[in-house]
């Protein structure tokens, strides 16, 4: 018997004596409770995943100190004490590097010196700066997930978008910023969208699996961009290494506050999150896209075009990844090299998973990853613990988020027996 489920709610005619009594709360309350409960449940696993990652990270810090075992043999108590102290120092430095030093804030504001206040805000600015491309790539991957597509190619789309944006950035001259910057941004979007179009159309026309095609197109993009960077007219004059000309200042994202690196790219990222949310949940095309993602045969039955949705989703996804590229080349480096992304496109996958493909969640997840990135260098210089610890922490967060059953098991969270596991993307093994 396939479809048989436990009874959901008492029927209206059921006599009270016969009906089993599920939840007895009146309906409106039940709905509010369900919504609140849903939100809490949605946050529970990510929050616990982060917590667990930091706990395991603490062990990594302790065990990576080679003198620890030596001292453990001599004076276990003192050794454990120093170890714990070391963890505290490391995480403290990480936090200060990501969010700033409370005493620095107090001193700066007390001093009334503008420069000092700005200096106090540098860590926050760096966190925002690091989070900006991650919001875009998280949105890119999430949009694909919503249509049942696993876009592993955000990295390649980011590179192509950045290359296009850089070209408009240096080739177009003499424009005011409010014309030039949008042009460059649009070029970045189109570049990424074009790179996303390829797996989209291949999937729609031939059924080629987007995972394979996007992985391969990442390599193609690296090498294509490497080629373009050496191209006369694109390569910076007088340089033999692959680096582009410097873009015009009119194509740069203006800083949010003069003197800090955080820029309007972050605001664009927030707007993009809002736009993606509106598109997915309020527009007819988004409705089609999600219907195809959840149940393609039913979408076809309802008269929607699976091919059109697939192509559209891949193009929008690629375009968002392209915007991530603009946030780097127009916001940080101001020129294009082959080293502009330390894997933003792949971090986007983790962020989309952690946020369960919800745009609002992506902002928070990206800020978390941005904070870890921003805090890693100050931590390294303050404590000598390698900044790679942050990579370990990110990997642990991803691992725990990807295995919700593990988190639920550790913290003994009861999960309804009837609920299935979340399916982000279909197509594996199909």
């Amino acid at each position, binding site marked *: *018997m396939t479809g048989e489920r436990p009874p959901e709610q008492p029927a209206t005619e059921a006599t009270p004596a016969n009906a089993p009594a599920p939840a007895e709360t009146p309906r409106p309350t039940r709905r509010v409770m369900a919504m609140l409960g849903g939100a809490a449940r949605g946050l529970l696993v990510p929050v616990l995943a982060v917590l667990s990652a930091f706990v395991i990270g603490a062990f990594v810090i302790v065990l990576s100190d080679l003198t620890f075992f030596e001292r453990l043999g001599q004076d276990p108590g003192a050794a454990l004490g120093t170890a714990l102290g070391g963890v505290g120092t490391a995480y403290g430095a990480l936090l200060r590097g990501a969010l700033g030093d409370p005493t620095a804030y107090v001193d700066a504001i007390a001093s009334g010196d503008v420069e000092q206040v700005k200096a106090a805000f540098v860590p926050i600015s760096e966190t925002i700066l690091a989070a900006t491309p991650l919001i875009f790539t998280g949105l890119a991957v999430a949009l694909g997930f919503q249509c049942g597509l696993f876009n592993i190619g955000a990295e390649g789309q980011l590179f192509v978008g950045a290359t296009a944006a850089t070209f408009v950035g240096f080739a177009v001259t003499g424009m005011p910023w409010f014309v030039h910057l949008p042009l460059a941004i649009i070029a970045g979007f189109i570049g990424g969208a074009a790179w996303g179009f390829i797996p989209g159309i291949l999937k729609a026309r031939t059924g080629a699996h987007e995972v394979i095609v996007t992985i391969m197109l990442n390599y193609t993009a690296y090498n294509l961009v490497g080629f373009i960077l050496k191209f006369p007219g694109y390569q910076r004059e007088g340089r033999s290494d692959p680096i582009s000309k410097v873009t015009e200042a009119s194509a740069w994202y203006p800083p949010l506050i003069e003197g800090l690196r955080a820029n309007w790219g972050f605001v664009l990222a927030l707007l993009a999150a809002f736009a993606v949310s509106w598109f997915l949940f309020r527009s007819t095309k988004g409705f089609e896209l999600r219907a195809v993602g959840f149940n393609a045969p039913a979408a076809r039955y309802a*008269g929607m075009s699976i091919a059109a949705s697939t192509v559209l989703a891949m193009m929008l996804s690629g375009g968002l990844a392209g915007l991530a590229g603009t946030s780097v080349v127009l916001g940080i480096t101001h020129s294009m090299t082959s080293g502009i992304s330390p894997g933003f496109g792949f971090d986007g996958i983790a962020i989309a998973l952690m946020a369960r493909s919800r745009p609002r969640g992506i902002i928070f997840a990206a800020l978390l990853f941005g904070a870890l990135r921003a805090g890693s260098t100050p931590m390294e210089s303050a404590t000598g613990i390698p900044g790679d610890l942050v990579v370990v922490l990110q990997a642990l967060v991803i691992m725990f988020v990807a295995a919700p059953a593990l988190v639920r098991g550790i913290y003994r969270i009861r999960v309804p027996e009837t609920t299935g596991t979340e399916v982000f993307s279909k197509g594996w093994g199909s």
Partner: protein
Amino acid sequence: MRLELRGITKRFPGVIANQNVSLVVEPGEIHALLGENGAGKTTLVNVLYGLYQPEEGEIRIDDQPVTFHDPGDAIAAHIGMVHQHFMLVPVFTVTENVMLGVESVRGPLGLLDRPAARRRIIEISERHNLRVDPDAVVEDLPVGVRQRVEIIKTLYRQSDLLVLDEPTAVLTPQEDEELFEIMRSLQASGTSIVFITHKLNEVLAIADRITVLRRGRVVGTTTPAEATRESLASMMVGRSVDLIVDKTPAKPGGPVLEVAGLVVRDDRGHVAVNGLDLTVHAGEIVAVAGVQGNGQTELVEAITGLRHPVSGTITIDGTAVHLAPRNVFEAGVAHVPEDRLEDGCVPGFSVADNLVLNTYYRPPFSKGIRLDLGAIERSATELVANFDIRTPSVFNDIGNLSGGNQQKVIVAREFSRPVRLLVAAQPTRGLDVGSIEYIHRRIVLKRDEGAAVLIVSTELDEVLALADRIAVMYQGRIVDIVDPERATPELIGLLMGGSAPSVAEAAAAAAPAADGEGAG
């Protein structure tokens, strides 16, 4: 084996699937478990088979309490289960499937002892008239024979108690009768059988005792001698049920759907619909009867634009529609698809979203590219009330509703707009008596509004109850069109099985007049 369930209670979060359920299955008894979908039948047998652990209550076998942690424990206690969806390896032979998991080996190398297994299978099948070729590959076997393989599998494991989960859902009427013969033979050899169904005729035909479940509780235990179809139906549903569809004679108008010389291939490229002709008029219900797999699915898919025909014409109101789902829909065709979870709705979407699954792009539900969520919610609230869809709110995920309510969402969506042609495939498959009654009334209502209605069903009762004309489909063609006035289950069953119309009529006429139930 004497099986006793005492006070079984199984809870799921927010629901009690079984509450204090007790029943006794005597040795050699055929015990029917009757109930609507969602009544808790499957949960109960899953508890019995060790797939679920009950919160309260105990299972006793021959008056000894037992605990099953997994199906292995249940099998060891000689309980066998035939699931509705067969658990067979298609590329293995019957023998290999039967011995899978209890392989007997011989020789120092531990080679499979197929000959020994084969001998036992032949012995079992001869004892209970379970005709099956032990060397046949399972994927080549028809559904009815696969079911026999499943039964042999349980007997091979020396089951004394057999649980059959909706065994007749996939069978033709003739195959039903063969299954009942097998069940009687097993009973005679002392095997107890728990038989799950929601079909009333079957219960009365085969059971020794009937336990009726409703909303997780036992509402009563009775015997076929004391019960009638009506009494069982009202026990299941909790109110009296109209088993006969009330309808006036059809007043057919002009032709709406005309199909001529239609040829359609199935997914594997075989010809499934082979030169089919069919006309459906406004204001009449034509029911296509046939055993599953005779081209009905492909016929419906061709009419609704989901599958491209190889040749032939399909016209709606005299015009040939370019066959794509949206064009067909805009030509005034409503379609209740065969597989509601696969095609009919989007689990993960809310009830409201599913109610606009094919109208979302048109006013009033959209304004340009923007969805009008207010209009969608208002319409959904109204449809939920009008079509008696039981859901906590229109925002609930349709995947969490019962099958009957999912089907009502689809029916509400397809029936709530003016249509010229209604195509409904298996509109009540797997539904309970209450929902069936409701959906049948809605279909007749649609006919009376002047729509042409094409029903495809493998349920004989449904065909006989609804049809103004019965088109029997066999191997891709309509072999005969029968007036329901002179149709009997025997006649339709013979035609469905491939007998030539003249032969079938002679045979049906010669057969003793049946109980005639369902021929409303």
